[in-house]
């Protein structure tokens, strides 16, 4: 950047040199920090793979994934019950959570105004910050008796209240705030001309939201849902408190079950000292990581494609 005319004094050129040095150093520092973060991630993956190698060497992957016999003491590690439990809990909580989140986000972004909006939005934010264990306690005190004493008898089922459905209900409340925040953001980011022109054409407000805004905010809403899915998939503490912890294939949603993350929590305490079990549980961790990873990657690709082609 220094000019070549030779008019600048020696002092000025040293300032420039100093600034260039600082520039180079800071960019190197930033690159180092980024590399460090990536390196840590690679290290985590490497450790997980290394530690789960013993169990993979001992038993074929298909056996691990498709067998429903879980009995670490006998060397039987069938993850199917936990996988099925995870799918149940994630699926039901998303089925309840998505409509709830979309409707409240639409209300917050398009109907509520002024103070109401600020107040409600701050509530949602606080809800997102509440630790899972608090939801677990509430689940134990409120949702478990509700399911056991009212909901199950009303449907003619016997249940202690601890089970897959209870875990899904608690979890659906946990994932909603994230989805609401992101959906509100993407709705608010839409230009007002969009609303004005739709209304000017004679659309009703609801028609405008449904026909125009939701479509326009599509990629944002999709990523909100995917983020909620990620949360639900890995949720641990609240789920472990109310799911009833049984490692067998569940017959109904009122039965107790197990998810991949609760399996780790429930079994690591006493058995970490037995190498094969430790390896099996670390393999569960690896599975969680790989699933969430592929999901995020897929979501990113999908979103990129959508954003490129999206038109309102």
């Amino acid at each position, binding site marked *: 950047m220094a000019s070549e005319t030779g008019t600048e004094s020696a002092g000025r050129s040293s300032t420039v040199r100093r600034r260039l040095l600082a520039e180079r150093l800071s960019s190197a520092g930033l690159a180092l920090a980024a590399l460090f973060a990536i390196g840590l991630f690679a290290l985590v993956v490497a450790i997980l793979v290394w530690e789960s190698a013993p169990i993979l060497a001992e038993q074929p992957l298909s056996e691990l994934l498709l067998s429903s016999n879980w009995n670490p003491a006998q060397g039987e590690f069938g993850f199917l019950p936990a996988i099925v439990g995870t799918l149940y809990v994630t699926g039901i909580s998303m089925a309840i959570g998505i409509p709830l989140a979309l409707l409240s986000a639409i209300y917050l972004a398009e109907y509520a105004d002024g103070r109401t909006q600020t107040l409600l939005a701050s509530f949602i934010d606080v809800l997102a910050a509440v630790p899972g264990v608090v939801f677990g306690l509430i689940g134990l005190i409120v949702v478990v*008796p509700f399911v056991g004493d009212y909901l199950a008898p009303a449907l003619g089922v016997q249940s*202690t209240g*601890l*089970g897959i459905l209870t875990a899904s209900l608690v979890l659906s409340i946990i994932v909603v705030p994230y989805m609401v925040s992101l959906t509100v953001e993407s709705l608010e980011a839409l230009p007002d001309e969009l609303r004005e022109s739709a209304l000017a054409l004679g659309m009703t407000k609801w028609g405008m939201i449904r026909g125009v805004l939701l479509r326009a905010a599509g990629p944002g809403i999709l990523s909100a849902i995917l983020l909620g899915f990620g949360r639900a998939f890995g949720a641990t503490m609240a789920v472990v408190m109310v799911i009833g912890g*049984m490692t*067998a294939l569940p017959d109904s949603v009122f039965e107790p079950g197990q998810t991949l993350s609760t399996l780790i929590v429930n079994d690591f*305490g006493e058995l970490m000292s037995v190498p094969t079990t430790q390896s099996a549980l670390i393999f569960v961790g690896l599975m969680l990581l790989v699933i969430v990873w592929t999901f995020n990657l897929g979501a990113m690709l999908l979103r990129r494609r959508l954003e490129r082609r999206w038109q309102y």
Partner: protein
Amino acid sequence: MAFRSPSSCSRRSALRAVGLASAVGLAGCSAFADSNDGPSIRVSGGVGPLPMMQVWADEYEEANVQVAGGGTGRGVSDVLNDQVDIAMMGREPDEEEVEQGLFAVAMLMDTVVGTINEENPVLDAINEQGLSQEDLAAIFTREVTHWSEVVDADAEDDEIVVFGRSDSSAAYQKWGEFLGGLSENELESHADANVNGDQDIARQVRAGVNAIGFNNVNYIWDANTGEIEGEVRPIPLDLDGDGTLSDEEAFYETREEFLIAVEEGIYPEPPARQMFLAANDEFTEEAEAFVEWILSEGQQYVRDNGYVPLTDDVLEEQRRTLAEGR
């Protein structure tokens, strides 16, 4: 942009305050550790013996004892990795663990008792007859599903609700052994629901009139008075299986009485079980002195805290094992 600078500034100063506070805290902590002149012993492991270890750590004056929980397996892996000096174990060491160099001595006994709700429809009948080991095995494996099938009482409609432990628990393991060699997983798969920890089982038993579970002594008898208090009631064992609870079998009135029955071996083992202290190969000098103290003077605190002291013979044997090393 103008509105951003005050907020980022305040955030920065807040961060700085937090950093400063934690630095001061850390300094204070290490100062505290340094101020204690004696050697320090690190202990981790089983949640079952944890409260007892805390009492011992307070009473022991020769060294500064730092106690952490984490579960038996955690304690074992800590001690084998030299992270701690002593591991607390709620069960005897596995063969695999001994092969890795674990050396353990017994420290005390602990036990669980079958529990039901105070409003249980057949509470009186159970208190009169007791339940035999076979009855309990049938209940926990769901061979019988109604109270009327195990006691003489009119309770056809009352279906038993069985609670087990979802976490890996030495108490649950021993309970399964007592019921006829059932593994933790077999028990788990028969239960109506499994919960995390002793506390949660007590909670479910308090909540359900037809619930059955099993709990540690301190969830049944009040920790201070030693009397039965609250909604959790013990299930007396019909030891000879004659269908009545004779005088020799009735020792559930107070905690004192019950713990003596365990100590004398009248209450069966399992579910009563020894708990262990373990080291990697051999105890350090300070740790050995502490364990020696636990096996002698330390035993006097055991019964007051709801555990069962080892008998003199067993104590003698453990002290010998400790002195000889592996």
